[in-house]
């Protein structure tokens, strides 16, 4: 193994530890604002994983959408409802032991499922030579009529529905 590959593995372990550790903090922290900040750390760890996977576009999209918009929305929502934060009381409901068992079972089941699949230990496919700008390929795939133009337009309708629905629910003046 070359030094570069070892560094890659170390980076993977660091970002995996960052992601999983802060994900645990998200579900375990008492103060909700701190949970939101841990969520940001976890999402950033996922962005580093995307960088390791050579998905440049998704790295910046992860930061722009998740950290820049979704996390800010969470923080705003926490601030708006903080009269009922109840940070002192128990943050987990009565059946949390059952929930932990379900979580562990899911993890075990998923790991068993994927490890019995043939492609489990696959090595990374080489990036085909000649792909200069992967983002351009992505754009072409999104708008070509024989590829993903329908999902592209449907995403617009989905966002429209979400905007109208959320405004209708959150904004009931009078």
């Amino acid at each position, binding site marked *: 193994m070359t030094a570069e590959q070892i560094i890659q593995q170390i980076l993977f372990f660091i970002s995996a530890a960052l992601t999983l550790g802060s994900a645990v903090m998200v579900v375990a922290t008492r103060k909700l604002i701190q949970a939101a900040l841990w969520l940001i750390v976890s999402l950033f760890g996922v962005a580093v994983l995307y960088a390791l996977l050579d998905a*440049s576009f998704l790295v910046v999209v992860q930061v722009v959408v998740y950290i*820049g918009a979704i996390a800010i929305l969470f923080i705003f929502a926490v601030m708006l409802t903080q009269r009922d934060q109840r940070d002192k009381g128990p943050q987990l409901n009565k059946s949390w032991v059952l929930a932990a068992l379900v979580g562990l079972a899911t993890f075990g089941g998923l790991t068993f499922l994927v490890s019995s699949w043939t492609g489990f230990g696959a090595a990374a496919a080489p990036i085909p030579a000649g792909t200069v700008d992967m983002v351009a390929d992505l754009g072409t795939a999104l708008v070509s009529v024989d590829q993903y133009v329908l999902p592209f337009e449907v995403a617009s309708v989905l966002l429209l529905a979400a905007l109208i629905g959320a405004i209708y629910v959150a904004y009931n003046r009078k």
Partner: protein
Amino acid sequence: MNFWNDPVAFIADWLSGIFAGWGMPEFWSNLLVFAIGIFVLIAAIMVVDIFLVWIERKVVARFQDRLGPNRLGPYGLIQPFADIIKLLIKEDITPRTADKVVYNLAPILSMSSVLILWAIIPLAPLAWGVDLNVGVLYLVAAGAIGALSIIMAGWASDNKYALLGAFRQVATMISYEIPMVAALLIPVMLAGTMSMQGIVEAQTFGEPGVWFILVAPLAALIFAISSIAELGRSPFDLNEAESELVSGYHIEYSGMKFGMFYAGELLHAFTFGGFWGILFFGGYSVFGLETLPGLQWLSSPFIAVFMILVKALVGYWIIMWVKYTVPRIRIDHMLAFNWKILVPLSFTLIMLVAVLNKLLLGYGTLVYVAGMFLANVLLAIVTIMILGAYARRQRLAEEAALQIPARAAGD
């Protein structure tokens, strides 16, 4: 390899030669050379930042008919160093109720969110941090980290004013991010790439090969307005609002931590001056003169770096000009201006440019540039006419509402 044609590669080669002489593997020596390069670049930016403090104070003094710093050194040039020494030996006061970790993290994030922008700025034809193929979105992502640092500072200070200031500032930043992203889409569309290097090259050597300010003047204007809002500078400095909120989200910060917010703000403005230059004014190109025969020497990296710094300074000067001329506006006006004028306008502009760009590209440079320019101007005129009509209707309605009771009182 000639030093004068490509100094960065020359020095990098020289350094890796030295490291190879020490028996270092190629991978590590490359990494070390990169680290040294980044360190030198950031150190240079910090030195520029120190002089920005001096420029800012000198320029604001001239705008307000004062002299500005003039005691320490010629023209007060040593003043910023005295400021730094003062910041370094000040006591660091942390409020008792503050969330210590988040409180200390916020100024660091604020400064680094600006510094990391310099990783993608093309300084010269062969000198840039990294030619990222998602450079434009990286700019937006760094802005997201900046917004996060503000909300962290406001919350961790455990102070009403700080939290109110942070909320106002973040509401401004996220609202104006929409027209900014929309305005950024237009250079991307014209250049066909998101890399900053590609955008600069498209303006000099591309298909029409003209500065994008000529093709999309309205996009440049929208980007200018929304980036001033993103910077939180006057007229959009509701976060500070000295008279109401004392100084917004950094009210509880003192000493070097406050200095980080302050220096970060100045450097942010300067950096955005640089991005105006890169996206709409040809970046490091010398007015396109270097493509002419006999003037090839103008594409020398040293002239290029000088040009980009000059363009950034001019942009910074315009931001200061706006800041010290225009009074602060109210938050409802500010948000209404964004959501009711800038956002619809920028979306209309995207659609217009997308279709016209496809239609006009086959008809030669002159028709293309003139058509795009006129379309932009026409859209701007239509917008101004609609706004004028709306304002007239509002005024008439208000006057009518005022006149009825006035007449009743007179009779």
